[in-house]
């Protein structure tokens, strides 16, 4: 159960932090339709967080709710991957992060749909439907922005170079067996987007294990947890 609890935190913290990051865009996207789409993705991810962390609290058996887990742990107890902690940057960076994540996320959920634990399989099945749409959308945007203007191409390549070192960590959770299909998928898309996959497979680690998060996570938590920290025990 400790290992299961950790696993559920890894899933739930990852959707939580990415959902939070996307929600930072509110009212600031380049196009109104994108504002709506980003909010929609954030909403899905927050919903998935409620399921993952809800189950985590259940499995832990200490009476902690999803909200307790989200709002009352310090950074080092979080188990999100480093990729989702990375700041939004420009719109291209946000979309590239989403693209790299969505394609892994979808593969991971499809694998989890067959999990022996029915509760996990059920959450995965529900989430996979939403994430199918996320992946379609981020794929489409990566192609349009990569194969757009020379400026947009340069921005998307910079985003890819910046974020690619955070991809390797994802497969420490899902298993390396998902990697070849992932690579094939994203390489095809990136080629269509006229972008070049970095040669180095160097990967940062420390998010899923909690051993070494980025400095960004702590700053994010100061906002996210503010009210619960400032008014302990209040009902909202």
């Amino acid at each position, binding site marked *: 159960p400790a290992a299961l609890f950790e696993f559920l935190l890894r899933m739930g913290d990852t959707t939580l932090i990415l959902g939070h990051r996307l*929600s930072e865009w509110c009212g600031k996207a380049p196009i*109104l339709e994108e504002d709506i789409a980003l909010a929609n993705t954030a909403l899905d991810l927050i919903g998935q967080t409620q399921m993952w962390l809800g189950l985590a609290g259940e499995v832990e058996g200490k009476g902690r709710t999803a*909200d307790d887990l989200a709002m009352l742990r310090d950074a080092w107890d979080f188990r999100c991957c480093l990729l989702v902690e990375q700041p939004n940057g420009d719109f291209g960076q946000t979309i590239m992060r989403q693209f790299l994540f969505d394609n892994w996320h979808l593969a991971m959920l499809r694998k989890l749909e067959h999990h022996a634990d029915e509760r996990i399989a059920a959450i995965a099945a529900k989430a996979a439907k939403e994430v199918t749409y996320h992946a379609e959308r981020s794929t489409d945007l990566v192609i349009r922005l990569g194969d757009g203007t020379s*400026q*947009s191409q340069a921005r998307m390549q910079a985003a890819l170079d910046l974020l690619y070192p955070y991809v390797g960590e994802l497969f420490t959770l899902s298993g390396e067996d998902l990697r070849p299909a992932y690579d094939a998928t994203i390489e095809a898309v990136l080629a269509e987007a006229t972008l070049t996959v970095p040669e180095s497979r160097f990967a940062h680690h420390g998010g899923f294990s909690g051993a070494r998060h980025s400095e960004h996570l702590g700053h994010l938590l100061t906002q996210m947890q503010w009210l619960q920290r400032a008014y302990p025990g209040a009902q*909202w």
Partner: protein
Amino acid sequence: PEMLAAFQARIDAGEKIEPKDWMPEGYRKTLIRQIGQHAHSEIVGQLPEGNWITRAPTLERKAILLAKVQDEAGHGLYLYCAAETLGISRDEMTEMLLDGRMKYSSIFAYPTLTWADMGAVGWLVDGAAIMNQVPLQRTSFGPYARAMIRVCKEESFHQRQGFDIMMKMCSGTPEQKRMAQDALNRLWFPSLMMFGPSDKDSVHSSQSMSWKIKMNSNDELRQKFVDQTVPQAEYLGLTIPDETLAWNEEKGGYDFAEPDWDEFFDVLKGNGPCSTDRIATRKAAWDDGAWVREAMNAHAAKKSTANVAAE
């Protein structure tokens, strides 16, 4: 003049005017101004609530707030589309917002300072908005009326959510209750301002009313809002920050203090507490996003060229 009379007759008969129908220039211009301002208000209105999305106290509250702000962006979209049927583009309207030629509702130039403001905005601001918008479902311009029908359905949901936050706060800790009262203190008069200046100072009114672009007078709606809201405040155990507030048996409504109209006109001039920040935020979003819009256009052009070549 004959066309004008025929046009007025159609309106008086309760017919809807559609984009391809003939209409007087003044009708078109007034509608563009009004619908555009309404659309901008939805968009700028995302910001004071967006300010608390990253600080929402629970996952549930964060999700509800996200959904609400997303709805507002959707309303903006409906309304821009309605305005576009009158021959102005969304981009043009955006430029006009950013350079000050078009306005947005004065309420969104006020800051949201505590979580209780998320309740108060839903309760008071959406409440006032609905009061304004419900009659507009019967407005004479078809696309606008149809947009308002969709908007109103969602707004009343938002208002209930806002009231629900207020209830939680008012039945919570003493700090939460104090937060709720503070929110009401700050947002009461700005909410009353949402109905526009007093009838005696209101320009544009009579022509708009005969065109059924405006369905009720400002003071009429304001009175209705006060009469609806005061009992709700009592139910919450909150005090309206107006010592002169009193039930007037004779008129069957409350007497209440006028907002500080100097402050209102200051806000309209761009001197609201957050006026500069709001426009700066939207301008940054617009400018920073220029490369995205350009890239999408460039990509679409490449694809259509490729398609033509392939044919």
